């Protein structure tokens, strides 16, 4: 995708005024509610008209205030997955899926029903009415419907925010699978840093209707560490679990981590760990209750709000810990130095993100 957008839209006291250019096949739009994300989606899809500006996609102008160009929403070939599924209640799942495909010109048809149904595992749902689907199933059908319209750009407008945590991570698995399989460029719009990091590597941050930053998702997450009540979320892929003395021991990047023994455990998975839950020691503490004590090398230090972030390396693994600047001075932390990081076993939280290539069955209750 080569998206260029320079647009202004005024709503009473709020004004969206953005100038951005996006290359590459995926990008996030991050911002709190009220920052203009949804307005941006509407301007791109043609559901709203900018007061002035210019929008072009892959060299084709979609809107040009000066020349009076304004391509209708149905001619833009930009698909949307909304926050809520918005399925047509009078059509079956199949009818919903085919709605966009039927209206797609033959020369643009690349994705057909069969292959989509396979990737999103929709086969058992095809002949059902949309009222008999669970929340997660509905959103899967909505994704399929947008993808089958064979868009040249997919706008994912907070597609996960109406779902509970369990379904949220399942749907992320489906979204990634479908976008990767069919190579559809997408913009992922969200106010959740965690979702953003799971979906894309580059991101545009909006604040009060302006572009605040265009950067990597990782950088944005680090910048926001000091502002966020949950700190920076480390994402760790743990594998090869074994039980040992009433705890679960997982392998992580050449080392081992101890977690409390859970009720339903898989042999591995994606876990989150807040930067606030890591305590740093200059020297080896002889006796400590925390089950994980890792010897790490300091890679870098960065400032974020009133906090200092410390990037640590342990084997191939990277962790971000946060401390107050005074602690960084007292411990004389410098890149290249050695530190001990203590992490309580209970600080890890499993994210229900399916492993690549194995989407989990949808177990959500009918809503």
């Amino acid at each position, binding site marked *: 995708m080569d998206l260029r957008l320079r647009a202004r839209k005024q709503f009473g006291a709020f004004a969206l005024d953005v100038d951005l250019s996006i290359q590459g096949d995926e990008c996030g739009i991050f911002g709190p509610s009220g920052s203009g994300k949804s307005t941006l989606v509407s301007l791109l*899809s*043609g*559901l709203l008209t900018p007061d002035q500006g210019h929008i072009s996609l892959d060299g084709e102008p979609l809107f040009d205030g000066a020349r009076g160009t304004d391509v*209708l*929403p*149905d*001619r833009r*070939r*930009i*698909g*949307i997955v*909304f926050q*809520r599924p*918005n399925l*047509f*209640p*009078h059509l079956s799942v199949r009818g919903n899926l085919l*709605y*966009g495909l039927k*209206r*797609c010109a033959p020369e643009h048809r690349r994705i057909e029903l069969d292959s989509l149904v396979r990737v999103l595992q929709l086969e058992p749902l095809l002949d059902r009415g949309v009222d008999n689907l669970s929340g997660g199933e509905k959103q899967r059908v909505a994704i399929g*419907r*947008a993808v089958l*319209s064979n868009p040249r750009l997919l706008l994912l407008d907070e597609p996960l925010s109406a779902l509970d945590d369990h379904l949220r991570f399942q749907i992320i698995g489906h979204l990634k699978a479908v976008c990767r399989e069919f190579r559809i460029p997408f913009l992922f719009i969200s106010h959740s840093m965690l979702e953003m990091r799971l979906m894309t590597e580059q991101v545009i941050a909006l604040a009060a209707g302006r572009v605040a930053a265009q950067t990597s998702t990782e950088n944005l997450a680090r910048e926001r560490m000091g502002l966020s009540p949950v700190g920076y979320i480390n994402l760790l892929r743990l594998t090869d679990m074994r039980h040992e003395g009433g705890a679960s021991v997982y392998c992580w990047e050449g080392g081992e981590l101890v977690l409390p023994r859970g009720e339903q455990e898989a042999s591995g998975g994606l876990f989150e760990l807040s930067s606030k839950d890591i305590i740093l020691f200059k020297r080896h503490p002889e006796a400590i209750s925390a089950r994980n004590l890792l010897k790490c090398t300091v890679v870098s230090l960065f400032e974020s709000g009133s906090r200092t972030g410390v990037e640590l390396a342990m084997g191939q693994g990277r962790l971000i810990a946060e401390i107050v600047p005074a602690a960084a001075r007292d411990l004389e932390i410098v890149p290249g130095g050695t530190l001990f990081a203590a992490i309580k076993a209970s600080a890890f939280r499993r994210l229900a993100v399916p492993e690549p290539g194995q989407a989990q069955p949808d177990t959500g209750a009918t809503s």
Partner: protein
Amino acid sequence: MPVFASAETSAILLSLKVSAAATLLSLPFGFLAAYLLSFGRFRGRLALDVLVNLPLTLPPVVIGYLLLILLGRHGWLGRALESVGFPLIFTWRAAVIATSVVGFPLLVRAIRVAMEGIDPHLIQASRSLGAGRIDSLLTVVLPLSVRGLLAGSVLMFARGLGEFGATIIVAGNIPGVTQTIPLAIYDYASSPGGDRMALGLCAVSVVLSVGVLLAHEHLSRCMAKWG
């Protein structure tokens, strides 16, 4: 129950015919008006709203008189239609027009209630999936307004059966030609010895109205089951 003579039978049949024709004729216009009022953002929307609802509060006789001015031999529309061999005034077609105008607000209101219950996101979704305005209207808005279209049609049909004031002015009260049930009752009630006939037609009116209301109730219940 008196056995009706041919004039009365034709009044009953004519009432049903006029009411059904008026309802069918109004459906496309009612759908369009309801769509414009529910989803349209244009100048003059308020004026359209008032115009559509005016017959609800205006005395039917006033509507009849205004139609007479427009459609009569001296009205521009009446003259134009007559010159192409399609006279309206004092024919059953005039009764259809009068009934349509009087019942129109009821039809539009019922369709509007259904349309306003449609989530605008569904229309946006259809547009983003490649449906043009008309396509979206026919494939999303129309099927989701069916409930309103049916309810409105039944209501309008029932209202049409009782139409009197506007009809008597534009269509007259010609037995066998434009005399509907209410007009026949009016005739019998004002002529000596017509009481029995008037009462008989009243009974027919009651039976028809109750039938229509029951049909309406049944339809609503079926709809609730489907929806």
